[in-house]
C-alpha cells in the first residue's frame, strides 16, 4: 500500500583515495557526503573481508593479511613498483613469469588479489554505506581519479568499479571535481588553480570558468607524491632512533612499523596546528619518546613540497596564464593542511588559497555534482576536461610520433593511416605509448595491437586507417578500417598493463559468486524499505481518531519502539532492523485493529502489520 519511491537513477560520486575513500550524492540541490572510509582492506583468518576503520587495527594485528595505499599499485607493472616495495609492506605474489608482465597480484593471508579487486572491496563498502543511508540499491557511480593518472591506471579504476557491481558512468579528475564542488555558488567567470596534494598523488589543474562551463586549460602532476612520502620520512627517523637506542633493527617487524606509522601520522597531523609534537612508542617493556618540532618537520619535508612547484609552473605555462591571471586557488587533499604547503602555494600563486571546504571531502562532493550532471538533476554545469599525457605511436628507430598532445580537451581523436613494408604482408604491429619523451622506451607503454588479416598486396599498397579516440573518461579506444574498402579491420589489442576484458569478466563473476557482501547490503536496504513503510504508516495513523483511543501507556510504548527502530535504522545489521520492526508491529497491533474496525482508513493494512 505504501510505495517508497525509488529514484532509480540515483548516481553516487565516489572519491577512491589512497588513504581514505568517500561516497556522496546530490540531495535536491546540495551534495551530501557520508563519513570517510579508510582505504584499508584485510582478510580475516576465516576468509572474511574487513574494510575501513575495522581494518585499521588489523594493520597492527595482522599486517600480512592487510593492505593500505593500494591505489599506488593500480594500473602498474612489477617493474614500476620496485621503489614502492621498499617503502610499503605490499606482499607481491607474482611467481608466474608470464603474469608478472601484465598485472600485479598481492598476497593477503593465503589468498591473492589484483589491485582492482582490492579497490573493489573498498568500493563495495562505500556502495553498501550509500545503500544503507539512501534505503535503495545503488548501481551507478562516478569515480574520481588523479588528473595525472595514465590510461592503465584509469582502466584499473574502472575495472574495480565493475568488479564491485557498479556501472561506472564516468571517471572524473579529482582536481576538476574539487573545482565543481567549489563552483557551486561561486564566481561566474575567472581562472582558478586547483592544488591537490593527497595521500599518494599530486595534481595541479588550471581551469577557466565561464557561465557554468568548467574548462580545464592544463593539468600536471606526479602520481607518486603525497602524504605517504612525508609519513615515511618521519617513520625512518623513528626506526633509526630505535636502532640506535635499542640496538635493534625493527624495520621488518610489521606490527612495530604499523604502530609507529600510525603514531607518526598523528604527530604529523598535530604539527599542522602546534609548534611541536611527540612520537611515543612502547614495545616489549621498552619505551621510546621523540619530540618533533615544526622546524625539524619543515626541513624534513621541504624537498617534497618543492617537488610540487615544478609541475605548477609547467601547468601555468601550458595553460598560457601567469600568476596574475589566476583569480582563485583551491586546496584539496589532506596534505594541504600542512602550513608549509599552504605557504608555498601562496608564494607561488601570490593568492591566498581557498580552504573553506573540508579538503578530505571536497573531491567526493564534486563527484556528487558530476553524478548529478550525468543524472540530469544538475543543470547548466558542464566539465570540459583534458588528457594529461600525450598519446603517441612508436615509429622507426624507437621514436615516438605524437598523435594527440597533452592537455587536449577530451574526447579527443586522431586518425593515422598504416601500410605494409613487405610484399604480401598480412599484419602490422602497432605500439601505442603515453608520455612526453622522444623515445618509446622512455614513455609508458599502453598497448600493442595487431592489424590482422590484411589482404596480401605489394608493399605500401594496403591502407589501414586507425582511429584513436580518448573518451571523456580519458581512456583510449582504438578502431581500424581498410581505407580502400571501408570495411572494419580486425585488431587484436594487448594491454601492456592491466586486465584483459576476459579477466575482468571472470572477476566480476567471482565477485557475484562470493557476493555475501552484496547480499548483505541488499538485505539491509530491503529491511530499511520495510522500516520506512511502517514509520510512515504510523506517522499517518497519529492523525487518525484511533490514535486518541489508545491509552497514554500504549502511545508511550509505540513511541519507544519508534525510537528503537530509528536507532538501529542506520546500522548495517538487518536482523536488528527486522527485530525492531517486529516489536513495533506488536505494539501497534491494537492501533491497527481499531483503525480497521472503524474502517476509517486502511493505512496500515497493506504493510506487514
Amino acid at each position, binding site marked *: 500500500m505504501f510505495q517508497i519511491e525509488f529514484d532509480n*537513477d540515483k548516481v553516487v560520486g565516489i572519491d577512491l583515495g589512497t588513504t581514505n575513500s568517500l561516497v556522496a550524492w546530490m540531495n535536491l540541490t546540495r551534495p551530501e557526503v557520508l563519513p570517510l572510509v579508510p582505504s584499508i582492506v584485510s582478510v580475516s583468518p576465516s576468509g572474511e573481508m574487513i574494510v575501513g576503520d575495522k581494518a585499521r587495527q588489523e594493520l597492527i594485528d595482522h599486517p600480512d593479511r592487510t593492505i593500505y595505499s593500494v591505489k599506488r599499485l593500480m594500473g602498474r607493472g612489477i617493474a614500476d613498483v620496485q621503489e614502492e616495495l621498499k617503502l610499503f609492506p605490499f606482499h607481491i605474489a607474482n611467481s608466474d613469469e608470464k603474469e608478472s608482465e601484465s598485472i600485479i597480484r598481492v598476497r593477503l593471508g593465503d589468498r591473492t588479489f589484483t589491485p582492482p579487486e582490492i579497490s573493489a572491496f573498498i568500493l563495495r563498502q562505500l556502495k553498501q554505506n550509500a545503500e544503507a543511508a539512501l534505503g535503495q540499491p545503488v548501481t551507478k557511480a562516478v569515480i574520481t581519479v588523479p588528473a595525472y593518472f595514465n590510461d592503465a591506471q584509469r582502466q584499473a579504476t574502472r575495472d574495480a568499479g565493475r568488479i564491485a557491481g557498479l556501472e561506472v*558512468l*564516468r571517471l572524473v579528475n579529482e582536481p576538476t571535481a574539487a573545482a565543481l564542488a567549489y563552483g557551486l555558488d561561486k564566481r561566474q567567470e575567472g581562472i582558478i588553480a586547483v592544488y591537490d596534494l593527497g595521500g599518494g598523488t599530486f595534481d595541479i589543474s588550471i581551469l577557466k570558468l*565561464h*557561465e557554468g*562551463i568548467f574548462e580545464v586549460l592544463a593539468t600536471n602532476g606526479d602520481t607518486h607524491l603525497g602524504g605517504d612520502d612525508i609519513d615515511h620520512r618521519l617513520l625512518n627517523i623513528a626506526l633509526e632512533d630505535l636502532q640506535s637506542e635499542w640496538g635493534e633493527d625493527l624495520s621488518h617487524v610489521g606490527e612495530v612499523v604499523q604502530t609507529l606509522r600510525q603514531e607518526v601520522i598523528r604527530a604529523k597531523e598535530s604539527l599542522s596546528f602546534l609548534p611541536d609534537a611527540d612520537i611515543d612508542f612502547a614495545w616489549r617493556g621498552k619505551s621510546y619518546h621523540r619530540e618533533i618540532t615544526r622546524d625539524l618537520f619543515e626541513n624534513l619535508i621541504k624537498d617534497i613540497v618543492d617537488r610540487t612547484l615544478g609541475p605548477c609552473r609547467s601547468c601555468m605555462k601550458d595553460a598560457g596564464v601567469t600568476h596574475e591571471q589566476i583569480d582563485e586557488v583551491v586546496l584539496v587533499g589532506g596534505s594541504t593542511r600542512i602550513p608549509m604547503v599552504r605557504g608555498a602555494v601562496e608564494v607561488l600563486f601570490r593568492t591566498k588559497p581557498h580552504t573553506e571546504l573540508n579538503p578530505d571531502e571536497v573531491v567526493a562532493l564534486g563527484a556528487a555534482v*558530476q553524478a548529478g*550532471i*550525468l*543524472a*540530469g538533476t544538475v543543470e547548466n554545469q*558542464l*566539465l*570540459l576536461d583534458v588528457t594529461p599525457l600525450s598519446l603517441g605511436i612508436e615509429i622507426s628507430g624507437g621514436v615516438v610520433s605524437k598523435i594527440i598532445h597533452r592537455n*587536449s*580537451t*577530451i*574526447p*579527443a*581523436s*586522431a586518425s593515422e593511416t598504416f601500410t605494409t613494408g613487405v610484399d604480401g604482408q598480412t599484419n602490422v604491429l602497432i605500439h601505442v605509448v603515453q608520455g612526453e619523451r622522444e623515445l618509446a622506451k622512455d614513455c609508458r607503454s599502453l598497448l600493442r595491437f595487431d592489424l590482422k588479416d590484411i589482404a596480401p598486396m605489394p608493399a605500401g599498397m594496403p591502407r589501414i586507417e586507425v582511429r584513436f*579516440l580518448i*573518451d*571523456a573518461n580519458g581512456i583510449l579506444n582504438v578502431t581500424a578500417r581498410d581505407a580502400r574498402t571501408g570495411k572494419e579491420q580486425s585488431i587484436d589489442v594487448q594491454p601492456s598493463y592491466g586486465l584483459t576484458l576476459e579477466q575482468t569478466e571472470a572477476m566480476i563473476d567471482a565477485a557475484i559468486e562470493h557476493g555475501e557482501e552484496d547480499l548483505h547490503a541488499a538485505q539491509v536496504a530491503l529491511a530499511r524499505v520495510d522500516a520506512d513503510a511502517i514509520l510512515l504508516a504510523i506517522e499517518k495513523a497519529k492523525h487518525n481518531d484511533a490514535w486518541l483511543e489508545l491509552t497514554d501507556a500504549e502511545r508511550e510504548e509505540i513511541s519507544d519502539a519508534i525510537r528503537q527502530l530509528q536507532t538501529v535504522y542506520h546500522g548495517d545489521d538487518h536482523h536488528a532492523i527486522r527485530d525492531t520492526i517486529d516489536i513495533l508491529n506488536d505494539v501497534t497491533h491494537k492501533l491497527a485493529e481499531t483503525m480497521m474496525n472503524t474502517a476509517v482508513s486502511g493505512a496500515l493494512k497493506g504493510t506487514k502489520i
Partner: protein
Amino acid sequence: MDYFAFLDLPRNLTIDANAAKDLEKRFYALSRQLHPDLHSRKSPAEREQAEESTAVLNDAYRTLRDPVARAEYLLKLEGFDIGEQTTKDVPPELLEEVFELNMALEEADIPQLESARQKFEGMRGEIDVELQQAFARWDATGNREALTAVRGILNRRKYITNLINQTNVPDRI
C-alpha cells in the same frame, strides 16, 4: 564536413580578438549540445555518437584556435601538400647558425646554447610577422599565391622551431 564549416566560420587565417571570442562562444554552445555528459542516459549508440561528435568538435576547436595549426589545416583543405618537413636540408641562409649550434651541443656549451636560442627565437618572431602579413593577404584576396607564400613561411618556421627545441638542454637530459 570540414572544421571551418563545422564551427560555421569563413576560411580565414587571421584570428583577432573578436574572431577568437566568436570561436570560443561557438565552441561552448556546441559543447552544451553535444557533450557525452549530457547524453549519459541515452542508448549506447547515442552515447557513442556523442563521444564521436564531441571529439570532432574538440579537434576542430584545437586546430582553429591555434594560428599555425589553422594555417596548416587550411593548406591541406585547399589541396596543398604540406608533407613532413625534412630537417636534413639546411636552408643556405642558416648554414652558419646550424653549424654553431651543433658545435655548442657537442660541447654542451650552455651559454652558447642560450645565445643560440635567443637568436632563433628572434628569427621566429620575424617569421611570425611575415606570417601575419601573408595571412592578411589570403583573407583579403583569397588568392592561392598567398597560400603558397604561407606554406613557405610555415616550413621555415617549423625548421626554426626544431632548432629552438634542440637548444632546450634540460629537456634532453
